[in-house]
């Protein structure tokens, strides 16, 4: 994590290069800077310590956990991890999540790009209506839709199946994707499109070989947001996917947590939390720069 922190390019962008030492601050500056650092350090501690504590506890036996929240484990074993992965089914939930999120992400990116492209660059009656209803879909709480959705999926025979969940994920990630990419496709220059048509490319070819590749930065940002959003989705699977074999990670965790209380297998619970956090931690650290950039570019246009 420390390697990432040293490249502080972003926070120097608004200022001229520093000259001379840092000791130019006045007495008031020192006081303010001390206060700022104290507050920021306190916040960082509040953020990090729970994670570290969970990591530590994940190696302890349940007796050790019950005995003291601070004690170190007598032996560092991965027994809890094995228990969480196989016995509690975290491994299976993990696999389900990868399948569901992977498929949903691929489909929603393709469909979203297609829809956004047509809405952004073609004029036809109903264009604004479609766009505005997408925006409305972004605002309305899913809770209003959840009961009818349950029965729609049941009528299609898709309730409690992974394809059903994938379709629902796609549908509810679509408005955000379209909204974000819409503004992106709008900024692409008309000349490129004209040139492609001039060279004899049809609409299909123009989209897939010219426009879509140009939208790659925007696609990447949306994909990251959609990945996190879908990976963390909770209500949709809990309501629409109640077959334990098809559980995704988030609902599996919730179920496991409520069972762990009875079986007093707290070590496995902590291990399961670590297993859930590590993949997103890895994704986060790899894409951290891009993610922060996307927050800026995308969400609040």
């Amino acid at each position, binding site marked *: *994590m420390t390697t990432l922190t040293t490249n502080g390019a972003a*926070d120097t962008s608004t200022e001229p290069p520093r000259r001379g030492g840092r000791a130019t601050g006045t007495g008031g500056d020192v006081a303010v800077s001390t206060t700022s650092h104290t507050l920021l350090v306190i916040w960082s501690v509040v953020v990090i310590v729970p994670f570290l504590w969970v990591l530590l506890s994940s190696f302890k036996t349940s007796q050790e956990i019950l005995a003291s929240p601070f004690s170190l484990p007598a032996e560092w074993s991965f027994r809890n991890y094995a228990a969480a992965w196989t016995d509690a089914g975290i491994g299976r939930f993990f696999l389900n999540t990868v399948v569901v999120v992977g498929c949903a992400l691929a489909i929603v990116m393709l469909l979203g790009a297609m829809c956004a492209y047509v809405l952004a660059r073609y004029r036809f009656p109903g264009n604004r209506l479609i766009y505005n209803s997408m925006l409305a879909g972004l605002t309305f709480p899913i809770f209003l839709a959840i009961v009818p959705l349950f029965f729609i999926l049941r009528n299609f025979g898709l309730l409690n199946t992974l394809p059903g969940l994938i379709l629902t994920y796609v549908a509810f990630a679509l408005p955000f994707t379209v909204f974000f990419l819409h503004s992106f496709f709008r900024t692409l220059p008309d000349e490129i499109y004209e040139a492609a048509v001039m060279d004899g490319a049809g609409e299909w070819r123009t989209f897939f070989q010219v426009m879509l590749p140009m939208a790659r930065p925007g696609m990447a940002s949306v994909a990251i947001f959609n990945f996190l959003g879908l990976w963390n989705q909770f209500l949709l699977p809990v309501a629409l996917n109640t077959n334990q074999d098809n559980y995704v990670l988030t609902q599996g965790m919730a179920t496991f947590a409520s069972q762990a209380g009875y079986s007093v297998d707290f070590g496995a619970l902590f291990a399961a939390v670590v297993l859930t956090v590590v993949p997103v931690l890895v994704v986060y650290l790899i894409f951290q720069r891009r993610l922060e950039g996307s927050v800026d570019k995308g969400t609040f246009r």
Partner: protein
Amino acid sequence: MTITLTSTPAGPARTGRRRRRKLTFDRASFMAVFLVLPLTIFVLFVVSPFVQALYFAMTDWSGFSPDMAFVGLDNFTKLLHDDVFLRAVRNNVLLAIVVPFVTIVVALAIATMVTVGGPTKGGIRGVRGSSFYRVISFFPYAVPAIVIGLIWAQVFDPARGLLNGVLTAVGLDGFQDFPWLGDTATAMPASMFVMIWGCVGFYSVLFVAAIKGVPAELYEAARLDGAGRMRTAMAITLPQIRDNVQTAYIYLGILALDAFVYMQALNPSGGPNYATLTMSQELYMVAFRKGQFGYATAMGVVLAVMTLLFAAIVFTVGRVAAGRAEGSARR
């Protein structure tokens, strides 16, 4: 009604420039596939459930039998006398007041410190090590909300939790076995804290990006005029990034009116004496445990109306604040 509508550039102006072309097969097939495919899914799984919900809310449907009677607004009158639901509404209103406000204040404070909070000599910059603080504080955003809830449920645990362990270790023995989530006085504040903890990172990064868009000359001018840090934050930063704050407020409000994931992780049954019960939890309970689908959908309608109302209030307040700022600038 829609949050983002006002901030998007008007559509037809740009599209209008393009000439209308002949409708060839290539073009027709392209439009058909590109529009029909996504829209089918959207209409089937998003639009139609919302529309159906409005009808179901006025029936006494129990879900698994095909017959349902149209009962008009009966469900809503019943809701007005449903003490548990009213309690949930109160909790949600409280959440919608406290969580967005505190989150935004903390996020703004962090963002200000890491961007413009640095020394008053030299260029406008943040405190040292600001990248480090940004990476750390943004991280909870990447963790599933349910896991955030589960982690904190363990931290708050009376006997083996980290919090009571720390408090008793520093000599506050009164907190021995104190049930943070099981006491009516602390359950709600503790839950709010968890939600704020989970949200601050994302919004501080958002505000960092917004503040970077403010011209540095404004800060330099304020400094020459002798404005202190607090004054600068209130008179320069806040008005300059007002749109971002407003949008953040609405997103956080939606989150606070939902709050399902967090509450489900911290107190699945609604907390001591329903202290942390939310509308979403009650809706889920009534629909999928009790099978009263019509009644539950009516709750969904209330939730949706409150969400839109919240957005409308934020917009109105934002507009009034904007008007006042302009007025004082002219004077």
